[in-house]
């Protein structure tokens, strides 16, 4: 009944830029799908796999992440001995600057866990899966590290990792953000590694003056260690650009995909909010709309994701847009291909028109 693994989530990735949406929050705290944040998928996959001890490395911009995670109760991780561990950077008491020993807090977290394996995930993966097969495969194969991959075509120039695997799925080269070479194996940044091996790798890195820990750095150990791939079949969204974020949001209107991503068997958990039911008033139109509790809809909405507490005024027309929490779209506004961050106001009659590849993005708390 126990899974012999602890989890480690790399909660931010400085290399992924989502414009004004990234400013107030770590990448894993990005809202997605009406009521979630990306980290909800990362945490739920772990919890659903039976992992009961999860460390979240949050080096910067961790305020909104802390607020969201709270005691961990929403993921059933408010546990006595296990549970959720937020790993902030160590601060030097004298200089008041980060001690550049981010590795220390990771090492500390891993050392004190009783499990023999560590499941590490990067911060930008939207998928609904269990890690039990990966873990079993890893233990059977005897590899040092096992990394998930699929055969999605990766776009040039975006933060991605391509894997060069031999016919036994053994890693022999890693290509980051490849501009030129394309491989058929694309990393899904989830890996399993034995606790003691990870510790020795981290200790060695620290002693050589390395200060940070990224997924790429882990895979680059392929020279010294046996790293194997493990193919994953389900749908994965890698959120590594604004266009990909927008595309992933718009794909939620597909019934099959949505039901797969929000399976009732392996639910995606998120922070509980107590909003009243959504009210749809007469005179409104709602087609292909994912809406959330607390919304009040009076306008004409199509192909949109509305987060909790969004209001859409009379005569407003929304198309192909994503509206974050508590944003107010006033009467007669007209939006198409727009992403608006939370607590914003779009005033009466305002028109905003973006393009599928280049949505208009409005930052948090804006008044337009």
């Amino acid at each position, binding site marked *: 009944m126990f899974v012999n693994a602890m989890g480690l989530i790399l909660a931010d990735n400085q290399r992924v830029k989502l414009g004004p949406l990234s400013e107030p929050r770590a990448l894993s705290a990005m809202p997605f*799908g*009406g*009521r979630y944040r990306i980290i909800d998928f990362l945490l739920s996959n772990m919890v659903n796999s039976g992992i009961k001890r999860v460390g979240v490395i949050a080096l910067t911009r961790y305020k909104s992440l802390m607020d969201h995670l709270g005691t961990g*109760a929403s993921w059933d991780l408010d546990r006595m001995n296990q549970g959720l561990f937020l790993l902030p950077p160590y601060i030097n008491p004298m200089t008041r600057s980060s001690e550049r020993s981010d590795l220390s807090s990771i090492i500390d977290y891993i050392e004190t866990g009783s499990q023999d394996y560590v499941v590490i995930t990067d911060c930008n993966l939207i998928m609904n899966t269990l890690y039990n097969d990966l873990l079993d495969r890893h233990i059977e194969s005897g590899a040092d590290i096992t990394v998930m991959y699929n055969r999605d075509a990766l776009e040039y120039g975006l933060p991605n990792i391509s894997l060069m695997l031999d016919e036994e799925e053994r890693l022999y080269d890693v290509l980051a953000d490849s501009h030129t070479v394309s491989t058929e194996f694309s990393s899904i940044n989830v890996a399993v590694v034995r606790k003691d091996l990870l510790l020795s790798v981290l200790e060695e890195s620290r002693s050589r003056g390395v200060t940070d820990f990224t997924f790429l750095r882990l895979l680059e150990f392929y020279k010294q260690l046996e790293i194997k791939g493990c193919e994953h079949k389900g749908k994965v969204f890698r959120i590594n650009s604004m266009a990909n974020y927008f595309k992933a949001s718009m794909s939620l*209107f597909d*019934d099959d995909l*949505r039901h797969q*991503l*929000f399976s*009732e068997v392996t*639910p*995606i*958990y*998120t922070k*509980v*909010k*107590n909003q*009243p*039911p*959504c*009210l*749809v*008033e*007469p*005179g*409104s139109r*709602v*087609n*292909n*709309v*994912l*809406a*959330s*509790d*607390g919304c009040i809809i009076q306008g004409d909405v199509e192909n949109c*994701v*509305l987060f909790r507490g969004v209001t859409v005024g009379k005569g407003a027309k929304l198309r192909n847009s994503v509206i974050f929490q508590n944003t107010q779209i006033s009467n007669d506004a007209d939006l198409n291909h727009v992403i608006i961050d939370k607590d914003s106001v779009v005033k009466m009659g305002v028109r905003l028109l973006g393009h599928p590849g280049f949505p208009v993005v409005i930052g948090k708390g804006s008044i337009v």
Partner: protein
Amino acid sequence: MAHQDVVALILAGGQGSRLGVLTEFLAKPAVPFGSRYRIIDFPLSNCSNSGIEAVGVLTQYQPLELNSYIGNGHSWDLDRNDGGTYILPPYVSQEGSDWYLGTANAIYQNIPFIDSFSPKHVLILSGDHVYKMDYSQMVRTHTEVGADASIAVIEVPWEETDRFGIMNTDENKRINEFDEKPAHAKSNLASMGVYCFNWSSLRRCLIEDEADPDSKNDFGHNIIPRMLDEGLFLYAYTFEGYWKDVGTVKSLWDTNMDVLDTPEVLDLHDQSWIIYSKNPQRPSHYFGPKAVAERIAISDGAEVHGEVRHSVISVGAKVEVDAVVEDSIIMPGAIVKSGAVLRKCIVGMNTVIGSDVLIAPEISDENDFVNNRLCEAGISVIAQDLVIHDGAQISGNSMIGPGDAVTHPHIVSEMPTRYSY
């Protein structure tokens, strides 16, 4: 146990027989309400918002789903170390075992529980009313006027006074008479079933009442008249605001429709008095490409592909393409299949309404399901965990329960599980 100034007891044990099949496997306070709530969310949230941290829920009838719903009280922020929520069922002691015989007997049996907090005041609440009320304000007023007991009252229309327990008071709101459902009322102040007692006075009255073999051990019938006879100071605490007893099919339907028609009155958006509920972990609700939605309330996990008007669609409910739902309440997890038409219908949890089923007041040929004793105004009720087979036509004022799956298996069948938790 830590001291608590106020202990609240919620009476949640009644069978709610006027709701018929809706409460066949469910205590009334666990009945779903307003798309994402259960009725007991209201007294529990009121306690939480009033700062009351010791809440006993007295259960007896079909408590499993209610107990599971309340759990450790976490959803209402009532999972406290030295307090929180306590489920209080009847129990066996060396003196013997007794089921709860009346509301007063239920509290009597839990005197040791209440004593353990050494409270000054005890609140007695009902588990089946929809309202937002600051009990701490009531306790404050109760203390200020120096009452032995305070009874919350609300002004009702004079023509309805014969349906309520009416409190006759002097000019200082001191109650001098209690009229149960009077034919000719002297006042229009109706008891809301919300009582605040000095624990010492109530404790003594409960013990005396228990010793009286003629007593029905009921608050309204026995305890309040006993206190009046003794000359205790009973104060009528006037409540102004929305308050509804949802004890009948008609009032349950009306109160749900109020959420749609006058959302500003109960005001569920009020951030200063949040009504908490156990949040299901379901995705945002979804309106399909052909959906029509007009004046509806809808919650997490629901999907609408058909036409829905003036209806309450609960958590995880689904309305398929070409189905029409009007003036109805679709409870959590229920499914309305394509081509079905429902009007003035309450569909219980997880029930499946088959394709092309027609349930509406205007269906004139009265069939076997009509139950004019419990249903009125054309409202039909379908119990939880049933399947209504494709193409069935059912007239208004019908009530369909699991028993009908035996007698009318070609129209209704029962689903394997009866418990949704």
